[in-house]
């Protein structure tokens, strides 16, 4: 009845955890433009970040962030689809420039302005298609409050480690719901700092290191010339047309993500021996999926659960796990199963189905019905 003394339970929303984790991880500045349902992140940022800037619009937000990122700071913003849509060209710019930053995308119900106060998981395709040319933004997605802490910190680290914009994908009911939560066991998060010097005699801003990530140097130093550009460029950062070195550099942008993907592949795989059905989900639907699996097991039904936390680039291991099951049920709160189609294609695969919906959270009951009706 009475709590164990070692626990420290709080009544808390996940926006608080995410904000604190980002700052502890080394985020220097929050640049914000208000939008529902990301406003709690903005409010907490005012109190917690070392620096906070209120931008006049979302395009400016991303441009300011890029300016900060080029000056040795790790910026963070939070938005929802309408804001993200405005940011996309600039996110592409920051990705090509290889500037570290974190964009927290809080999903709400679309299309268009939709319903700002209703959750959704409808922006998976938008993230996947944000960059021209089939390049991928590293995208992490928390499945519960523990993840909100850990993955928010990791997103900041990853942005610095990969020299790239990183998306932390979440949704309204994940970050605005208040919960009783034991925060006594939160792991420490190390503070990361961007590099500000080099041993190279001539610094090349886009010369890859062994992990294919180029060494970062900010404009704050005046020992080495830094050239940063969003146009197709060579290793020196000089605009090129279709020179082989420049095209190699562009290809490297995706290769560096894939080469380092193992360092940021996060998922939960709850395997039940003998199960022929795999439930696969992410974000807030993970909790309904976990609950459905518990209930199904109580009923004697064998099911395994895969929770994807690294959405992009898609880790190969998800497909390898899915391959082992006759039936795969992908649970996501959108019109027709965006992540399912990315995993299995429009042709699909025999035994693969989706539980989808709009305008309300998918419940464990719907998932159980879906599995039992298979």
């Amino acid at each position: 009845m009475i709590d164990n003394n070692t626990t420290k339970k709080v009544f808390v929303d996940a926006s608080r955890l995410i904000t604190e984790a980002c700052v502890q991880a080394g985020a220097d500045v929050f640049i914000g433009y208000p939008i529902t349902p990301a406003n709690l992140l903005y409010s907490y940022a005012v109190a917690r970040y070392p620096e906070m800037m209120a931008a006049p619009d979302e395009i400016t937000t991303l441009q300011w962030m890029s300016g900060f990122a080029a000056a040795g700071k790790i910026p963070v913003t939070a938005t929802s689809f309408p804001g993200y849509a405005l940011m996309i060209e600039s996110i592409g710019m920051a990705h090509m420039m290889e500037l570290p930053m974190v964009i927290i995308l809080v999903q709400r119900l679309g299309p268009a302005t939709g319903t700002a106060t209703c959750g959704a998981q409808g922006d998976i395709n938008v993230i996947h298609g944000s960059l021209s040319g089939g390049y991928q933004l590293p995208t992490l997605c928390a499945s519960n409050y523990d993840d909100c802490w850990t993955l928010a910190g990791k997103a900041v680290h990853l942005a610095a480690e990969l020299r790239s914009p990183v998306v932390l994908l979440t949704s309204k009911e994940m970050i605005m719901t208040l919960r009783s939560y034991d925060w006594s066991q939160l792991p420490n998060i190390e503070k990361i700092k961007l590099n500000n010097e080099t041993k190279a005699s001539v610094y090349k801003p886009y010369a890859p290191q062994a992990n294919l990530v180029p060494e970062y140097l900010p404009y704050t130093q005046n020992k080495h010339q830094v050239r940063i550009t969003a146009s197709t460029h060579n290793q020196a950062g000089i605009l090129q047309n279709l020179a082989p070195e420049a095209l190699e550099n562009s290809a490297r942008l995706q290769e560096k993500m894939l080469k380092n993907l193992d360092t940021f592949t996060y998922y939960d795989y709850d395997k039940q021996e003998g199960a022929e059905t795999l439930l696969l989900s992410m974000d807030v639907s993970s909790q309904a999926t976990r609950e459905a699996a518990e209930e199904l097991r109580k009923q004697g039904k064998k099911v395994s659960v895969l929770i994807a936390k690294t959405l992009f680039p898609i880790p190969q291991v998800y497909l390898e796990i899915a391959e082992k099951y006759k039936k795969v049920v992908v649970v996501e709160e959108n019109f027709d199963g965006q992540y399912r189609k990315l995993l299995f294609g429009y042709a699909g695969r025999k035994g693969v189905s989706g539980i989808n919906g709009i305008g309300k959270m998918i419940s464990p009951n719907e998932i159980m019905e879906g599995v039992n009706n298979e």
Partner: protein
Amino acid sequence: MSNQAFLSGGELPFCKGCGHTGIAQNTEKALQKMGMNPLDVIMVTDIGCHGIVDKNFLTHTFHGLHGRSVALASGLSAALNNPDKKVIVFVGDGGATIGINHIISAAHLGFNLTVVVHNNMLFGMTGGQPSEFTPQGFKTPTLPDGSHKNSFDICSVISSIEGTYVRRVTGIGDFSDALAETFAVKGFSLVEVMEMCPSYGVKSNPGMKLKTVVEASGLQTEVFADTDGRVFQPNKKEQTASLLNPKYEVTAKFSHNLSNKVKIMMAGSAGEGVQGAADMLAQAGMTAGLNVTKKGSYPVTVGVGFSAAEVILSPEEILYNGLYIPDVLIITSQDGLDYSKPAAKKMTTGTIFIDASLEAPETGAKVIKVPFREKVGARNSALASIFYYTKKYQSFEFEALKSVFATSKLSAKIDINIFLDL
């Protein structure tokens, strides 16, 4: 004056006779006059012919998107926050057209940078389309009859913003002093350099001289505003407190009677305390050792319409934080009734507590009418409902709720006894 080179020795990448060449050369000369170190200068370039010059600069270079260069430079300038660094933005009249909001914003906020508008009165890189800066009568390849409107006067617009330095020059000959004076400003400065595109402007307007166009357009080549001194001040904090404040920790000191979770939906009107009451109910549950979640639901309007909350009280860990079908539905207003009718219809068991003034919804649940609004008023009806629920249901000790209420700000304004007599 220094002899440090700011441009590499190679040829500049512009058509013969292009004013962009003069701007690049005069920029180098101006920076030499100022004695700047090239690596304390960051040249930020936009998209357009002028933007391909960055490879010739020996400064730091930053080449972004069309029209967004001033915003990019603004972020950089704010982050540098260093008067010894010089941020210079090269933008064309096309980029200044699409990005005018960024220029206005940067001027308004006083970012420490200089914008050099290369105004050749058309889009040169894409074939000579008109911009907002194309003057009346000026022809371009896609505007063969000439523009029917006056050109946009960026100097007048930006100089109307307090604390800016703004001037216009004709980009012929040596104008490095004008550039140096502009670069030396601390805060936001803008210089518009008038030029003529040799490929599209000159060919479309044979015999027309730059000076004639500028004069005919009524564009003055002068200093418009000289109010140096209002520089952006970053909003920085040396130390901020952790958001994981122990004051939010809740100690379980009461007991509960639940063996299964209870899912409660509260539906009322905005401004009648639904969210606060739901928070209080959940917190009271926590002080009784229960796991809780509270999810809010409301329209985008802040002070009108429905306001609903879903609270789960559970002896076990809660995963899914939705209700699906509530066990208990509390309706305190007509807005709440309208909102919760679908939920009420789904209920085949459980209880609905509804304000006595309202008509019972269609449901299989037991309906109990309670005069919340009449007894405590509309504003306190939601609070009254959680006291009523707790007393009636005994999910946890009633003292838990009284204790949470007593420590809330509301206790100073509302006498708890009004809730105890229901």
